[in-house]
């Protein structure tokens, strides 16, 4: 397998934050139609192994690019910057304060009377925050302001984690 290709190049897509999601999907399917191990079922074990590796790489590339958080992280990695999750935190005090308030709001929803409605409005707010951070990241990345982009990435992690937690509580309430 050729490791010199980055995840965007695998799909012949430009290395960029903006993504043609439809094209990505079409190309993903075209590649899996060529490389999926099912296509190699009657080939030699050697070819089978290659196909499994190739298909796994295509899947990983697709997942990484498709999801905004991992795409942002990967873009910074391509700039030879270590974007692993532990190393970056945000020093934006206002943002952290907002996050704490949001978290408090979430914990108060559990057990409250109109939990479902409250969750929906909190969810909308969280989605808006995430969208705003993403657009900030986009312009910072484009201007090669990588330090700022890192900070946005850290914020993005907060925001996505918060959305996940909202979804989890929503699932919990539904199951009751």
């Amino acid at each position, binding site marked *: 397998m*050729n490791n010199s290709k980055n995840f965007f190049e695998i799909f012949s897509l430009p290395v960029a934050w903006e993504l043609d999601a439809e094209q990505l999907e079409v190309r993903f*399917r075209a590649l899996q139609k*060529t490389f999926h191990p*099912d296509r190699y*079922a009657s080939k030699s074990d050697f070819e089978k192994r290659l196909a*499994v590796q190739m*298909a*796994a790489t295509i*899947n990983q590339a697709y997942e990484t690019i498709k999801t905004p958080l991992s795409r942002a992280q990967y873009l910074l990695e391509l700039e030879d910057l270590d974007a692993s999750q532990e190393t970056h935190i945000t020093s934006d005090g206002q943002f952290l304060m907002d996050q704490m308030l949001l978290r408090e709001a979430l914990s108060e929803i559990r057990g409250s009377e109109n939990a479902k409605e409250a969750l929906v409005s909190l969810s909308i707010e969280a989605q808006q925050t995430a969208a705003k951070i993403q657009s900030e990241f986009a312009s910072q990345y484009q201007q090669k302001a990588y330090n700022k982009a890192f900070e946005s990435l850290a914020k993005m992690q907060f925001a996505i984690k918060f959305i996940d937690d909202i979804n989890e509580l929503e699932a919990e309430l539904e*199951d009751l």
Partner: protein
Amino acid sequence: MALLQISEPGQSPQPHQRKNAVGIDLGTTNSLVATVRSGSEVILPDEQGRNLLPSVVHYESEGVSCVGYEAAEHNSSDPLNTLSSIKRLLGRGVADIKTLGDTLPYEFTSDEGGMPKIKTVHGAVSPIQVSSEILRKLSGRAELALGGMLDGAVITVPAYFDDAQRQATKDAATLAGIKVLRLLNEPTAAAIAYGLDAEVLDDESQQHLVAVYDLGGGTFDISILRLSKGVFEVLATGGDSALGGDDFDYAIANWLRTELDLGETLDVYEQRILLEAAKSAKEELSQNEQVELDILDSSLVLTRDTMYQLIDDLIDQTLLACKRSMRDANIAANSINEVVLVGGSTRMPRVAEKVSDLFGLEPKCTIDPDLVVAMGAAKQADVLVGNNSTDDMLLLDVIPLSLGIETMGGLTEKIIHRNTTIPVAKAQEFTTFKDGQTAMSIHVVQGDRELVSDCRSLARFELRGIPPMVAGSAKIQVSYQVDADGLLNVSARELTSGVESRIEVKPSYGLSDSEITQMLQDSVSYARDDMQARALREQQVEADRMLEDLQAAMDKDGSALLANSELQCLQVALQELQQFRDTSEDHRQLAAQIEIVGKTSEEFAARRMDASIKQALAGLSLDDALK
């Protein structure tokens, strides 16, 4: 009129020779085998014309006496030696069996490995052995019908089966002498069977969301799929690999026990009688409002409403799993276009009714829910074995449960999340906890809970020889690789020293490769010499495939992608392999030569992959331009 072609004597007309490929549905209650004949899937019946094979094996002191309908006749007279619903035990440990409770009327022995075995007059037998008897019976049936040895089989498993259960299924097939082309998830198989006549999929842009609700005898699966032309993409799957129609029977049997005042302890005969009565009552209530039962000299009436009270909780559990899967797929119930019912237990009107309510759709069950899985598997087998080269069907399936590793404090760190498309490979780095630590114990688990103790333990292994360093400075990379069967491989490597440890994940209570080999040797059909001959034959087939693949690739791309010297080097390697292939009697020697050719052709393979990527995408831009 075109003349029929006959090949030269001794030359086989290989390109057009159909291969014998089947799909096998190894079910809790019944099993089936199907194949593709003149373009359509057919179930292969037994000599009496019966499609189903009850998944029942009867043992007598000399060994297996019979399998299927015949075996089921011993159910009440010889319960301890008549093994049914064995799929519930497949790939499970002793502890799991305990949680299944007293519902299984067998006596178990737990051997050293922790794999439960069932006591019979023939001795203790493992669930893998019992399953292999069922598979053997089916492959025999298929070989008779197809007039030759099988070239391969697709075997279906519940989508929610974990790694241990999948591995056990594959081991059972190996033990039965079956070449497994693929383990295929049951709901996906059903989708394939339905997808064939899907009127909706003519237009590439059209997408169709399908929920496959599969309630069998002992397992429940829900899969949410997105179908577009020729592509079956599983978005999410969920279920319960210990919930099925059997549990309805147990619930009803339990009620009967209370109503008849039979007390807590029943002998196995009484248990069987109650279960049989419960089962037939359940089936009868699908047609009638109430049923009269005569059991153990008493009689009583069971109404539909009472039965609903007994089983509604169980059905509701399945609906909860449906909701979770839709959430995982990020899809609302009302955007599902179609609901497909699979599995014998969906014949119960109550099940169909509740599923219909949840999705707001009339479920589809135009193909017999007992047969549909085997038919889809047959279709897949036909494609995989190479009989159907025109079909560009593509299956993108997922793993049902997250795969993780134990970290400090008994917590699970997920490495691959559930509903990730397979095949998939992921690596994560860990470090040492103590100064000078030279070994690390790696505990592989499967499940979505935080605590390791709540997850499935798949394997433990040790990475030794880490150079002594300060705590936290060693870098140990643990790689998980899941293949297209959903089976996991794990390796660990210390990055500074390159110390590596690699294991094929074999559950602690599964069979090791050497045990399988031993069992194959022990069985009458494979003497020791046969094993050698078989291994050599397998390597020869592999060598032939490799020679054929590489020669074809070189003819096609050799001059374009390789320098003259590289081409010559490869040609020499191929000639040597051909020579070994024709003369070597030692399968290890041949295997080594195959390995060498593999290494020599790696670079060529990489370049071909690159070229294929270009080609796959180039065709696309052309299509786009034409739009």
